[in-house]
C-alpha cells in the first residue's frame, strides 16, 4: 500500500434490512490519495451517503475492509473509532448540526475540547479557523443569529478544527442557494490547497462536481465511473 493513499477500500459491501435485503454498496474497491479534492455523484439511493458514512466510521460494513491512514477501521475498537472520528475526520452535513446552545467559537472549539485540548488553546485555534472561513467578526453569535450560509461556514471551521486528514461533506450545500454554494465550494477548495487535506464531497450538483479533481459515479451501489478532471 502506497503511503500516498490515505484511504483504501477493498470489496466493500453493505446490505441493509433483515427480511428484504437492500444492497446499498456492492463490492466497492477504490483508493483515495492524500490531499485529493473529489466528488461522489449518482442518483438518489445509489449508496453515496452509505459510502461516506463507512469512510466516516459512522457505520460498519457488512463485508470488506476500509483502511484509513494505515489503520483497518473495520477491526478497530469503539474507543479507537471515536478517537479517529475526532482526530482524523471532519464532518459537514446538509444541515449544519451546530449545537444551538453554544456560539460560533464555542461550536468550533468542541472537537478540540473532545480531543482534550486546553480551553484557552482551543479558543485560539477556533478563532483562527473562523477567520479562515471569513467569520472572524461573528464568533460570539449563536447559530440562530447566523444565516444558513454562515452557519455552514461555522460547521466547516468546526470540521477542520482538529486538522483532520479527511474532510467529508454530504450534500453540504444542499440547503443553500447556488451563489452561496459556489462561495462555499471555493472556500473548501482554498482550504484544501492550503492544508493538503483530503476532501470527499457528495453532491447532486453536476456543476459543482465538475470543479473537483476527481469524480466517482455510483449507481446501485457500484462504481460506474472514476474520472479525473
Amino acid at each position, binding site marked *: 500500500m502506497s503511503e500516498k493513499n490515505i484511504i483504501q477500500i477493498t470489496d466493500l459491501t453493505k446490505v441493509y434490512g433483515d427480511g428484504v435485503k437492500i444492497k446499498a454498496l456492492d463490492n466497492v474497491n477504490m483508493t483515495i490519495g492524500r490531499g485529493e479534492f473529489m466528488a461522489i455523484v449518482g442518483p438518489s439511493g445509489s449508496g453515496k451517503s452509505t459510502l461516506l*458514512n463507512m469512510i*466516516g466510521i*459512522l*457505520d460498519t460494513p457488512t463485508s470488506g475492509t476500509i483502511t484509513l491512514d494505515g489503520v483497518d477501521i473495520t477491526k478497530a475498537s*469503539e*474507543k479507537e473509532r*471515536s*478517537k*479517529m*472520528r*475526532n*482526530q482524523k*475526520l471532519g*464532518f459537514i*452535513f446538509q*444541515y449544519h*448540526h451546530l*449545537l*444551538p*446552545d*453554544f456560539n460560533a467559537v464555542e461550536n468550533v472549539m*468542541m*472537537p478540540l*475540547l*473532545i*480531543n482534550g485540548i486546553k480551553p484557552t488553546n482551543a479558543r485560539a485555534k477556533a478563532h483562527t479557523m473562523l477567520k479562515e472561513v471569513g467569520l472572524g467578526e461573528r464568533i460570539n453569535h449563536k447559530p440562530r443569529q447566523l444565516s444558513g450560509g454562515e452557519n455552514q461556514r461555522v460547521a466547516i471551521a*468546526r470540521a477542520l478544527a482538529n486538522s483532520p486528514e479527511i474532510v467529508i461533506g454530504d450534500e453540504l450545500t444542499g440547503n443553500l442557494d447556488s451563489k452561496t454554494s459556489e462561495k462555499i465550494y471555493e472556500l473548501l477548495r482554498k482550504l484544501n490547497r492550503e492544508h493538503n487535506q483530503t476532501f470527499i464531497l457528495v453532491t447532486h450538483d453536476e456543476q459543482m462536481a465538475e470543479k473537483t479533481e476527481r469524480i466517482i459515479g455510483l449507481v446501485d451501489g457500484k462504481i460506474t465511473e472514476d474520472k479525473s478532471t
Partner: protein
Amino acid sequence: MFEINIALRHIKARRRQTTFSVIAVALSVAIIIVSMSMLTGFRENIIETTVENQAHITVSPKENEDYISLYHGLESFIREQEGVAAVSSYYKRGAAIQYRHNVEGAVLSGVRPVDEDHVLNVKKDMIAGEFESILGTGNRIILGSKLADKLEVGIDDTVTVSFPGSKPSDFKITGIIQTGTSADETLAYANLEQVQDFYGKSGIVTGIGIRVSDVYAVDPLADRIDRETGYDAESWMEQSSEILNLLNTQRQFVFIFYLMIFAISGFSIANILNMIVMEKVGEIGMLLAMGTSRKSILAIFLLEAGILGIIGVIIGAVLGYVSCILLISYTIPVPPEMYFGLDHLPIRIASENFLIAGAFSMVINILAGINPAHRASKMDPVEAIHSV
C-alpha cells in the same frame, strides 16, 4: 470536561422547564427534612421522658423471692460499678389510703429522699412542700397530686394508711408531687425506715433504682449487675422495649412514604431529561460524529440529572431548615395528654437528617437520569443525524 459545559448549557437553555423539576426535588427534600426532624424530636422527647421518669436500671428480687435482703451490701457493690451515677433502694408496695370517707388505692414507696432524688429528680416535681420533709419525726407522707385531689386532702392533713393484715397508721401530708404522668394518681412517698416498720419488714427492700451516666450504654451495665449478683437487673431499654419497638416500626413505615415522595421528584427529573434527550437527538448524533465517546454522552446526561438534583437538594435543605425554625418558634396548642405534656411540636434539627435526606434524594435523582442518559449514549450516529 466539555461534558459539564454541555450539561450546564442544556439546563440553562431550558430554565423554565428545569425550574419545575428543581422545585419538585426541593419540595420533596424539604418535606422529608421537616418530617424527619419531627420524628427525631418526638422520639427523643419520648425517650427523654422515659429516661427522666424511671430509674435507668431497676434491680428486683431474685426469682421466687419477694424481697432483697442484705441490700446494703448490694447497694455498695452497685455504687462501685463504672457508669453508675446514683443508687436508691426502696420499699414499694400497694396500700390503701383513707381520709374521712374517701379511700384510694396507692403505691407507697419508702425511700431515702436524697438518694431517690439523685436517681429520679423528684424534687423538681414537688408542687407543695419539700421532698426531704419525710425525714422529720413522726409518720410523714407525700402524695401524688391526683391522688390528693381524689382524697380531697392538702398539706398538713392527716391520712390513714393501711394494707391487708396490718394495723392502720396515720401519716401527716408534708408535700404534693406532680410528675405529669398517670403515676400521679397512685404515687405516695414516705421515709424508708418508717415504711419498713409499717410493713414490719426492717432490713429489706423490694427494689433498687440506679441512675447511669450514659443512658444509651445502659444494657451492658445491667447485664453485669444481673450476672454478678444474681438479682434481676433490668434497663430502661428493656422495660420500655415496647415503645422503642413502636418507634422503630414507625420509622420503617414513614420510610416507605419517603421513598414515594422521592420517587415523585425522581420522575420529574426523568421527565425533563427524557425531554432534553428527545430534543437533542441530532446534537447527540453530531457529538458522536465529532468523536465524543459513548461514555461522555452518558456522563453529560447523568451530570444534568446530578446538577438539577443538587440544586434541588440545596434549596430543599434551606427550605426544610427554615420550616423547622418556624415550626419550632410556634407554640401549637395540643392536648397535654396527647403529647406527653408538650405544648409545641418537638422538632429536633439534626445534621444527619439533612445528610440522609440529601444523599437519598441524590441517589434517586441520578437513578432517574440513568435511563434517558443510557438511551442517549446508545444512539446510532447516522440515524440520529438524519432525524433532524
